[in-house]
């Protein structure tokens, strides 16, 4: 039904913290209610060397908000001649979303980042009108967010290294989306460390 705008297209994302590393993962389904149209619709966008945002919700808004945020971050980098920090990025996003407080975008966001000098990790979770959480260990957004949250809590351990973090994130995402008809059809996982970023594509149940 076109009743629930946030589940019209489906999709899910998850972010988890490790020791001086962060993982962010999303599914690849693009659907219109119960029809799957494409299986290459990733929902994670990069805004700086170590800052990523994932948007889940109405697909048109996923595209528009990610592009409009890119507009603002590009100008920031040109004007200030420096790269974005995670807390500045989430604040810009909050601003962007709240500007449409009474006619909002239908996307929920995850902002993740790493400070390459100190190794400090950031995960922020935002609703569609810019209410941001504190810096958390685990966050999920999307139609299967509750299922993935449960699995995420199960697999999460503090201070995981990059490989353990990848395993925990992947398992939580892949198994969580199996319970949701509107998410799945493959996944992408980014593991962000101080000196490198590893992107892996996962093949899960193709249904």
């Amino acid at each position, binding site marked *: 039904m076109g009743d629930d705008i946030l589940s019209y297209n489906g999709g899910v994302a998850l972010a988890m913290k490790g020791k001086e590393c962060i993982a962010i993962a999303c599914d690849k389904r693009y659907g219109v209610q119960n029809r799957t149209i494409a299986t290459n619709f990733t929902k994670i966008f990069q805004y700086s060397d170590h800052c990523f945002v994932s948007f889940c919700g109405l697909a048109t808004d996923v595209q528009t908000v990610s592009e409009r945020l890119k507009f603002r971050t590009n100008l920031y980098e040109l004007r200030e001649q420096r790269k974005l920090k995670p807390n*500045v990025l989430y*604040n810009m996003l909050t*601003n962007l979303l709240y500007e449409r407080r009474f006619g909002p975008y239908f996307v929920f966001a995850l902002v993740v980042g790493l400070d390459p000098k100190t190794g400090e990790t950031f995960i922020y979770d935002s609703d569609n009108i810019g209410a941001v959480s504190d810096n958390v260990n685990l966050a999920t957004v999307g139609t299967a967010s509750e299922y993935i949250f449960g699995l995420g809590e199960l697999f999460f351990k503090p201070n995981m290294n990059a490989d353990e973090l990848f395993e925990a994130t992947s398992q939580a995402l892949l198994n969580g989306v199996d319970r949701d008809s509107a998410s799945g059809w493959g996944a992408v996982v980014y593991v962000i460390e101080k000196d490198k970023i590893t992107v892996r594509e996962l093949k899960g149940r193709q249904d």
Partner: protein
Amino acid sequence: MSERYGFSLTTFSPSGKLVQIEYALNAVNAGSPAVGIKASNGVVLATEKKSKSLLHDDRTIHKVESVCKNMGLVYSGMGPDYRLLVQKARKLAQEYMLVYEENVPPTQLVKRIADVMQEYTQSGGVRPFGVSLLICGYDYDEDRPFLYQCDPSGSYFPWKATAIGRNFVNGKTFLEKRYSDQLALEDAVHTAILTLKESFEGQMTEDNIEIGICDKEGFRRLTPAEVKDYLAQIG
């Protein structure tokens, strides 16, 4: 209510000059002297604040003003124009904070203030500001102090040390001799006072000069008692 003019009052002369801006600079050069010096660990701003009458309550009005936690201003030229710019600068700094949740870096605020000043040279029915500003700030990302001058035209210049207002040429010559990259903030304050003294008529006291300093902790105006101590050290 008269309607705004649609055309700018600042127009080119045949020789390619914007005469209104030249005149604005004349207003600046007739104003009381102000000095700015960038030390290795901070910036000092100093200005003459002479009252025209003994009846003036000196301590109520200030020339050296803070814009936000890490930035301050001083001027030469027309006081009322300065007041407006201070208000605009403060608002711009807060707008930045609202969007980015970070203290505005000095370079960014200077650009925005200079843009305001430039606007008034190209908008309908307004005149340029009759002030030059000295803007000091501490950049937490780059971990260093900054000193900028902003002119009525909207041009801005980064300085290691500079003087504006009356006798600024002598002031700058004096600073060229005295300035060194290794200057610490304490020495910079002394040098600033000595520079002001070059063009000062009469006795310098803690009530007829104003000093502001900006370091890693932020910007603050020195109290008259602190100024008195510095003056005593100079003798």
